[in-house]
């Protein structure tokens, strides 16, 4: 019963339906919010090629993992890190995950901002928005900040004004001017089409951002699910990811 | 002295009235519902602004549309008793009565309020909420509340109509006493002529926004100026055509059959009115007794006991009503369906000329 409720709650993240009529096979995909634009673009092509009807659900990767643990009926899980898929696999929730893309953590600011490096974030009064500790974007951010001298890290975190549950919340607040700066993926900056600009992080601070995906055990459509996951490394969706700015598998 | 003149359109009603009430006097406006009675009260109280109007109370001008004077309702010292009493449900009886007493301390307000309630026999109910009071008790609280501020003018909207018949008799007596005791001019409206007659020093009959006749209750009953007034004051009204007889009396051919004679003078289409208590009932027979010149053969349709009298609903070519004593009913062995003779004097038969096509209500 709780699983059914969790499945209903799976609509907590934004829901994007793929195309396809009722005769085609339904495939439920839970994907990290940062892949929203890319996967929404390639899903119709997958639908056409494989006579499927992909139902995409975007939210923070941790949120989606929790739903799967609660028994949500999902076929594919694609996260913004490898830690969450590995944990799910250890717990027998998904089949062996594969790495399918990389991304880059950047400091994002509005197009007209005076901030041009991570040092500017220590200035008091700067409104910084980051991800919450349990969502990949948040843990990458903290991983990065941990590499800084403790005083600098403390000053920066003191300016954090919101711990967002997914990366799109950070982007939204940046775009609306509610925040001065935020740590997001370069792919998110690309998606704003110029409203927000990315400041690259120094090489030594950059975390390794690797995306992992797997077929959920007890998936309703394991065969089709495997096809989708494969398509993330090679195929329409892989192309879409690259177009959005995701990097290839290391 | 209260004087109210108003010309206004209230919904579908065209109001055009002018009334004056002396101090200590009670003028009762009686009329059917929709006649505009409540509107007159509301104009006096300042709750309704007429297109043209003049309201003067004890020397103060409360409203003068020509002169641009309008005193708002809250500054007129009116005691208004509403038709459904409008008691504040969240306040106790004494708190309701004390509501208008602003400048006094709490102790004095309660004392004054309870005193007023005691005078109306409600002392022990002072702490009760309106919801737990009976209809008659609520009426008295409303009255006490209206009197609390010693108002310049007393306005009463159907003060007795919400009461059941049994409570009404006592309440009427009480209200009449209160009205007698108060010096403020009182304007009362009701749909019941008997109530108006019992409470008002003068009665005005109001119909369709106009006052059709004013006078003492007996004047109105005895010399109604129109069929409507006659009917409204409780008479039996029959329609017919009149012509003067050689002996000076008027002969009336009743519509539908039958004839009566009247001492009044009239010609043409008339309304014939006679009071139920002036009609005697005799067993149906050919023989003529006494001086009553009018005799109609009628059937008894209904018998209603009112106190120690019995009201008989009768049917001839037109409906009639007669009031006789219970003893008479027993003596005559009256029962529904019986054929009897209704008789009354020509001198008790009033005629009112009806306008062309006029109908009695």
């Amino acid at each position, binding site marked *: 019963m709780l699983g059914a409720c969790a499945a209903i709650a799976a609509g907590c993240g934004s829901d994007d339906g793929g195309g396809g009529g009722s005769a085609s096979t339904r495939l439920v995909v839970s994907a990290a919010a940062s892949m929203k634009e890319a996967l929404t673009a390639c899903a119709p092509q997958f639908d056409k090629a494989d006579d499927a009807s992909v139902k995409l659900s975007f939210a923070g990767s941790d949120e989606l993992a929790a739903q799967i643990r609660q028994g949500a009926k999902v076929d594919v899980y694609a996260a913004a890190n490898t830690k969450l898929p590995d944990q799910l696999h250890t717990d027998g929730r998904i089949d062996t995950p594969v790495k399918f893309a990389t991304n880059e953590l950047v400091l994002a600011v509005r197009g007209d901002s005076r901030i041009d490096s991570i040092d500017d974030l220590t200035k008091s009064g700067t409104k910084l928005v980051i991800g919450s500790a349990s969502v990949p974007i948040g843990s990458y951010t903290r991983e990065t900040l941990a590499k800084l001298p403790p005083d600098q890290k403390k000053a920066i975190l003191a300016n954090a*004004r919101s711990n967002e549950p997914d990366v799109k919340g950070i982007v939204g607040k940046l775009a609306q001017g509610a925040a001065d700066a935020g740590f997001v993926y370069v792919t998110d900056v690309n998606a704003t089409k110029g409203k927000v600009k990315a400041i690259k992080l120094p090489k030594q601070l950059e975390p390794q951002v690797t995306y992992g995906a797997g077929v959920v055990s007890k998936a309703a459509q394991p065969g089709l699910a495997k096809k989708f996951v494969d398509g993330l490394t090679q195929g329409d969706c892989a192309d879409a990811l690259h177009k959005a700015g995701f990097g290839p598998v290391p | 002295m209260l004087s109210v003149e108003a010309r206004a359109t209230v919904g579908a009603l065209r109001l055009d009235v002018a009334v004056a009430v002396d101090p200590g006097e009670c003028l009762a406006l009686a009329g059917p519902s929709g006649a505009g009675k409540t509107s007159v009260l509301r104009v006096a109280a300042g*709750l309704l602004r007429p297109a043209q109007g003049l309201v003067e109370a004890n020397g103060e001008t409360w409203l003068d549309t020509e002169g641009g004077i309008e005193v708002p309702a809250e500054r007129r010292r009116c005691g208004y008793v509403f038709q459904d009493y409008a008691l504040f449900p969240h306040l106790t009886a004494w708190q309701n009565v004390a509501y*208008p007493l*602003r400048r006094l301390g709490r102790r004095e307000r309660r004392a004054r309020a309870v005193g007023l309630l005691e005078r109306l026999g409600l002392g022990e109910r002072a702490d009760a909420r309106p919801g737990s009071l009976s209809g008659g008790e609520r009426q008295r609280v409303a009255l006490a509340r209206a009197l609390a501020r010693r108002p310049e003018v007393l306005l009463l909207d159907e003060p007795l109509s919400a009461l059941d018949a049994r409570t009404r008799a006592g309440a009427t007596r009480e209200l009449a006493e209160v009205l007698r005791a108060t010096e403020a001019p009182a304007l009362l409206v009701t749909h019941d002529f008997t109530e108006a007659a019992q409470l008002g020093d003068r009665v005005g009959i109001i119909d369709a926004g106009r006052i059709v006749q004013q006078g003492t209750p007996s004047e109105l009953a005895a010399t109604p100026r129109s069929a409507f007034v006659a009917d409204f004051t409780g008479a039996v009204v029959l329609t017919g055509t009149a012509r003067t007889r050689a002996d000076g009396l008027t002969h009336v051919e009743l519509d539908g059959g039958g004839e009566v004679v009247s001492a009044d003078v009239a010609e043409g289409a008339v309304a014939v009115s006679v009071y139920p208590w002036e009609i005697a009932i005799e067993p149906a027979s050919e023989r003529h007794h006494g001086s009553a010149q009018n005799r109609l053969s009628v059937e008894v349709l209904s018998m209603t006991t009112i106190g120690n009298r019995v009201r008989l609903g009768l049917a001839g070519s037109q409906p009639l009503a007669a009031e006789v004593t219970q003893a008479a009913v027993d003596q005559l062995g009256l029962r529904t369906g019986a054929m009897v003779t209704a008789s009354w004097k020509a001198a008790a038969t009033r005629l009112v000329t009806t306008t062309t096509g006029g109908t009695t209500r």
Partner: protein
Amino acid sequence: MRRPRWFGVVLAVSLAIALTFLTVPVVGIFVGSSPADLISSLGERGSLDALWLSLRTTTISIAIILIVGTPAAYLLASRSFRGKALVVTLIELPLVLPPAVAGIALLAAVGPAGILGGAVEAAGIELSLTTAGVVVALTFVSSPFYVRQAMAAFAAVDRSLLDASRTLGASEARGFLRVMIPVALPGLASGMALALGRALGEFGATLMFAGSFQGVTQTVPLAIYDRFSTDFDSALALSAVLVALSAAILLAVKFVHGGAALGGWQAE
């Protein structure tokens, strides 16, 4: 004339379905974890912060709604004017807005880049990403719940009571305070309960407009969402508190209503 048997069965079955659907999730919250775990996870810092923040922001928000909304509702209930239908629709609009849309709307209105953003900044007020912003979001989404009920409650008060108040020498303002409000109180209280329940549970608009930061903007619903993936027991515990609070509010209102029916007017 006897009602057909099948109709009564349909009614009963509908009620049973509705009841089950509404109560099982609530029961699930309480059954999911042991009371000891629930209480201990409530005691940790983040949960306490969330509870205290929710309490503060909801109280301030409701206070604003009552102070501003009550006279506004009275005006709408007692007067008619040109464009009234439009005004009422505008006031009810947040009712039908999805919370996320409400959040965006607030950003577009009083966010830094919003139409009034400049004026707000010039006045030295910061709204987005602040506790004040939480209050704004709560007030925005909950006020229609109160105003609508208050309008209906005022409109249902017998006009003659106000007339009586005026003839007894009280100004309209005094009549409003001493007659209208007390008589309309049960309706006002239930409107307040609805608004309170809505404010306590508000999530989307708050997240969008004010963000989620412990102690500053992370109200109980946001805290529940945050803990969902990492500490499910904590999420359950907070949910249980919210359910209990909401139930308490509803019961309190029923009590007020019941009191009004017992000691006050009897239908005549």
